[in-house]
């Protein structure tokens, strides 16, 4: 399972593609289990340079009956920093709890390419 993420151009906010627009909550992201469909969404995301920067697909893992980003880095992006409780995690609720309790560690999909560019 995959989701499409990026940073919003105007403010840098972490955003996810819900199939029609960019949203701030991972819980609202569209989930793709079809690789071709995911890649098409990514191509569409990369083609929105006035809206977002660095669109890429992330791998997901099941957590507490919900889906969460597989890599720790992507969970931090979806939640906010761990040193202060002032990111997206302030919303609380089951979706945030599922992200916090998720396990599974793998390199963030797309990250290697991003680092190469930076």
């Amino acid at each position, binding site marked *: 399972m995959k989701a499409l993420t990026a940073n919003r151009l105007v403010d840098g906010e972490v955003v996810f593609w819900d199939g029609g627009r960019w949203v701030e909550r991972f819980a609202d992201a569209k989930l793709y289990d079809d690789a071709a469909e995911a890649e098409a969404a990514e191509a569409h995301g990369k083609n929105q340079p006035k809206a977002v920067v660095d669109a890429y697909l992330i791998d997901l893992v099941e957590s507490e009956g919900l889906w969460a980003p597989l890599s720790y880095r992507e969970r931090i992006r979806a939640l906010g920093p761990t040193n202060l409780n002032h990111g997206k995690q302030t919303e609380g609720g089951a979706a945030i709890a599922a992200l916090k309790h998720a396990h599974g*560690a793998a390199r963030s999909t797309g990250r290697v390419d991003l680092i190469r560019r930076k």
Partner: protein
Amino acid sequence: MYRYDTLDREILADRSAEFREQVGRRLAGDLTEDQFKPLRLMNGLYLQLHAYMLRVAIPYGSLNSTQLRKLAWLSKTYDKGYGHFTTRQNLQLHWIKLADTPDILDHLASVDMHAIQTSGNCIRNVTADPYAGATAEEIDDPRIWAEAMRQWSTLHPEFSFLPRKFKIAITAAPKDRTAAKVHDIGLAVKRARDGAMGFEVMVGGGMGRTPYVGSTIREFLPANRLFSYLEAILRVYNRHGRRDNIYKARIKILVAALGAEEFARQVEAEWDKVGTDADLPDLEIARIRGAFAGGAFETLPPRSEAFEAAKASQLAFARFVRNNVKPHKKPGYAIVEISLKGIGETPGDATAEQMDVVADLAERFGQDDIRVTHEQNLVLPHIRLDDLPAVHAALAAVGLGTPNIGLVSDIIACPGLDYCALANARAISVAQHIAERFADADRAENVGELKVKISGCINACGHHHVGHIGILGVDKKGEEYYQLTLGGSGAEDAAVGQALGPALPYERVAEAVDTLVEVYLRERKDGERFLDTFRRTGVAPFKEAVYADVH
């Protein structure tokens, strides 16, 4: 401190207006991200994990109260109410919006501040001794030379597209508080036998994935020839630096490849060509020197009864004095270090309220002078001993009274995976766990000087290579692991740390540091710091203890 003149202010106004226009074009879609990125980076604006990050330059780590209050206000108005002081003596704001950035740059310019030289392949903000103008140890005030270098290097057209970024540090005291030997160029002010002033010039130090301690290529450079010599170094680097490979593009790689002797020979040859035209006139140095002259010091007795009484009656104050208060060149004064390493807090972070309090104290008690250290702390360099109890009380009231300067919990940590787009692993929470293990102030004082430095990736913003205990976060199949190194130093006895052994998982790092400290306490001889004991015993007893359960 140095005050900007009309020319400085015009440059900042132009720069800010230019960036406003560039941001407008990017938001309108007239610039692609690839076109815009180098432009925003040259204005200190990075895109990090959660938002944009603006790195504000604090040239040679020197601020006045108006400037610090402005930073506090910016952090409240445009960020989440705090800022992060860095190992480059700068301030990072981690929650910035692109659309706000032109306004922020205007606000910075209104107090003679900016974000120039905080990114890009140019000469970066010069590091200087945070005790400058206050310590009796110094030969000259390094801020004079740092300010001259700021003016010389700012938007210097020949050095705006170097093979890679370029960092200069200057110290004028034998005790190096700038990590000069691990900079691209380290300058140490020296006096010749005839009393003439000059610089020892060290080149090719650095951290990152290939750490080096710099080599001295000139024992004594006459002070009035500094700028032609710097130009010669940069020309040799600009000509031969490895632009083809980002990992080999720093000057340290060139110096290592050529050998320090051959590099020095080429610099001397280039220096002959540059000639004296590139040097600053003595008059200009004298003008800059005038901006740092004096200080409004009173003639005071060396002993303050108020200070002694507070020390005798208040244990917390006495501990603060032992660890955070340093001797001043003037009788009756002291240098006060403010720890931004409260136990369990984020190293280097200060809230807007804390910044305001420090600004107020500087204005009321400290000649309006504030410094940032490369170890991510603040300094009030000129406090009367009589005023120290009041200063301490005001600091303690906002959580800035932590008495741990130079101790195990005074940890350098980069933002790491909590904020940084390049990081492999977290650094902040590792620092917090270690500090919490040494929350007992008696125990921390008993351990004594111990510099722990943590980086979340090999770029080494947390200076792990030169930590007495260095900790490097690595990504092991997607999990956070940490490689420990021992025996590094960024001070006058600079050294690159030696690997302890296989990387440890996140949960084991604080415990491993505790074990290393216990080995040191067991092995140390009279007066030895952790570093001294390590250098005497080598890595073996430490390694054996940390990996005991693996065997």
